[in-house]
């Protein structure tokens, strides 16, 4: 964080030396840590170098509820940033709270962008119901299955090239885990079982592979969707009971279980790709790794997904037009340069980058890029999205149900009532 900050300062000082230019200070808040954070810091650094007239002053805050709480509070008191990262899943909730400033046609022109530069679905997710744009999409990110080639060596689950194979159903996946346990592996699949975000991503992936729908015409878990949700939790609970997943594990520890070579499988976001790449590059990863799209465990392909986007907070005091233009310059530049962001595992939202040969050749992204066709986004509702009531419910009900403190049926019944009450 601070190393990068001092680089920024150094860059800023360097520009002071050049002839007096009125420099726009752009205050930037994001929630990007780990490999993501490093990639974004490098991007910001490059931007500042290339733009003597604009300086991004970046702060990283804690992901999730703390980030969005601070955004809301600071924006309300007029102390918000000039630009922030935002999850598209949360846009309906944000519109409800009124924290996002509209991105006008003029803004887009200042960024050198048009809505056609992005996939239609992303633009729709970033807009209000009446079609006004409130955020500029940056990527699509999802969960993938990381695997340890060395540990799977000699099993039926690697093909001749050393790629994962034969995972086409829940049975085969569970058989693989059972076989690994027989061979002395303690926790064949690591994921952050104590973390609401991760638990939700696993749950929602299984649920959507059964064709489940969280909200149907304003009704939470309508019809047999509740049964599908119960089934998804039962599967996760079974994995825990069988000792296939580590119990009550926090996010960092779940990553460590994979990188230290204890768990051959790891279910996590594409944003951990740079962690693996970096560790492998520095020789700290003692094994060969790969990452694939989550297999069709429940009959059909489908993966939880969300998007990072850039947004401008809505404050009482309108932003100085020149500053706003500078902010849009930043957004435009970031979109154009999102190939570097793809190194953090993400799929760029900017079409010309996502469709470029450079991106198509990028590994492991290319291996799992097909998942974009079957992704399952959060329902478009003000109760859904990162740090929403839905996440609260996952933390409060689904995590304990997986841990066996309440039954899956009880958890889902409670979740249905709790969330339904919040839908107006």
């Amino acid at each position, binding site marked *: 964080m601070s190393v990068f900050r001092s680089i920024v300062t150094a860059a800023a000082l360097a520009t002071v030396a050049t002839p007096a230019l009125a420099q726009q200070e752009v205050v930037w808040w994001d929630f990007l840590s780990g490999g993501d954070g490093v990639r974004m810091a490098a991007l910001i650094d490059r931007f500042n170098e290339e733009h003597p007239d604009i300086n991004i002053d970046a702060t990283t805050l804690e992901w999730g*509820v703390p980030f969005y*709480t601070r955004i*809301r*509070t600071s924006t*309300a*008191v007029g102390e918000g940033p000039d630009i922030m990262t935002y999850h598209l899943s949360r846009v309906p909730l944000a519109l409800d*709270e009124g924290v996002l400033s509209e991105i006008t046609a003029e803004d887009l022109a200042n960024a050198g962008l048009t809505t056609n530069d992005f996939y239609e679905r992303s633009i729709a997710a970033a807009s209000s119901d009446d079609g006004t744009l409130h955020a500029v999409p940056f990527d699509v990110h999802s969960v993938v299955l990381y695997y340890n080639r060395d540990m799977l060596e000699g099993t039926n689950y690697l093909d001749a090239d050393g790629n994962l194979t034969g995972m086409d159903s829940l049975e085969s996946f569970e058989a693989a885990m059972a076989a690994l346990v027989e061979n002395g592996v303690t926790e064949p699949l690591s994921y952050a079982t*104590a973390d609401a975000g991760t638990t939700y991503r696993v749950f929602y992936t299984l649920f959507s592979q059964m064709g489940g729908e969280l909200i149907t015409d304003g009704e939470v878990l309508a019809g047999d969707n509740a049964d599908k949700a119960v089934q998804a939790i039962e599967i996760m609970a079974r994995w825990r009971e069988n000792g296939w997943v*580590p*119990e*009550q*594990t*926090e996010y960092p*520890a779940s990553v460590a279980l994979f990188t230290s070579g204890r768990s051959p499988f790891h279910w996590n976001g594409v944003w951990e790709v740079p962690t693996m790449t970096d560790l492998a590059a520095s020789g700290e990863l003692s094994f060969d790794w790969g990452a694939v799209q989550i297999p069709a465990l429940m009959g059909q392909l489908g993966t939880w997904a969300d998007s990072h986007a850039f947004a401008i907070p809505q404050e009482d005091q309108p932003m100085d037009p020149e500053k706003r233009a500078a902010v849009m310059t930043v957004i435009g530049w970031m979109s154009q340069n999102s190939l570097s962001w793809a190194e953090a595992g993400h799929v760029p939202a900017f079409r010309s980058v996502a469709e470029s040969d450079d991106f198509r050749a990028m590994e492991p992204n290319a291996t799992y890029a097909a998942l974009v066709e079957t992704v399952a986004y959060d329902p478009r509702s003000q109760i859904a999205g990162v740090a929403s009531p839905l996440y609260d419910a996952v*933390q*409060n*009900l689904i*995590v*304990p149900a997986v*841990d066996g*403190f*309440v039954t899956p049926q009880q958890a889902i019944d409670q979740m249905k009532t709790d969330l339904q009450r919040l839908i107006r």
Partner: protein
Amino acid sequence: MAVIRNPRKNALIAASLVAPFVLTFALVFAYPTFQVIRLSFTDSPLIGDGEWIGLDNYWRLLSDRLFYTSLWNNGYFLLLTVVPTTALALGMALLVNKLKGRWQALVLALFFLPYILPVSVVTEIWTWMLDFQFGILQPVITLFNGDPVAVFRNPYWVMPMIALVTVWWVNGFNVLLFIAGLRNIPRDLYEAAALDGATARQRFLRVTWPLLWPITVLVLTLQLILQLKIFDQVYLLSQGGPFNTSYVPLLLVYREAFQLNEGGYASAIALVIFVIILVVSVLQFQLLRIVGRR
């Protein structure tokens, strides 16, 4: 007083002396107190205006299950902390009091040390001590439980463990109060008791305990008020989970105001908590005084 002064000038001087405190008090205490009462009758967001809605917030509070849960949890937390820390502190103080010279200073310093740590340092250290995978205390837990426990994720362990951390943190302060109390007990009382042939046990029950009672009341009262307002440790260790088993009233205020943007409702909760704290501490203080007089 013999010196006759101009009362007007006198009042002006007095005003200038009290002004810094009174003005700050009016700004950051009296005015906010008035505001929190006013807000509790509105549906204001955190920042911005709302409509007057009368008692609606209070009716809503009455049917808010999480409010009762959090009150219950806070009550449980009081049970786990107030009397245990008082007893523990008394025991430690008696032990320290028996030690001599440099040893006494050293042992006392070590007992007191945790108290001067910032709360987030305390929670960081204990999160590490109790870490599910690598925590140094997990073997101890395994000894009793058979399995390691992710204590802050477990509905049965979470409150007792937050209580343990809290007692560890604040106990040193209570030890000091008891030591001060012990030092105030005149030596000759013990000598007289010894001459009467009183055993150590009798000396404690007839001399130490009765003379220490006012301190005990003080410690109990301070702890009660302090632990009724618990927020920091819960927020930092468990965020109120799992499934609200460690939710406490102040966390509710924080969540409603700062996460859900319900300034009016949060104010109503805050006021109710305030009244509860006031009533409980006054009641307890009176009760303990009566017990002491008996």
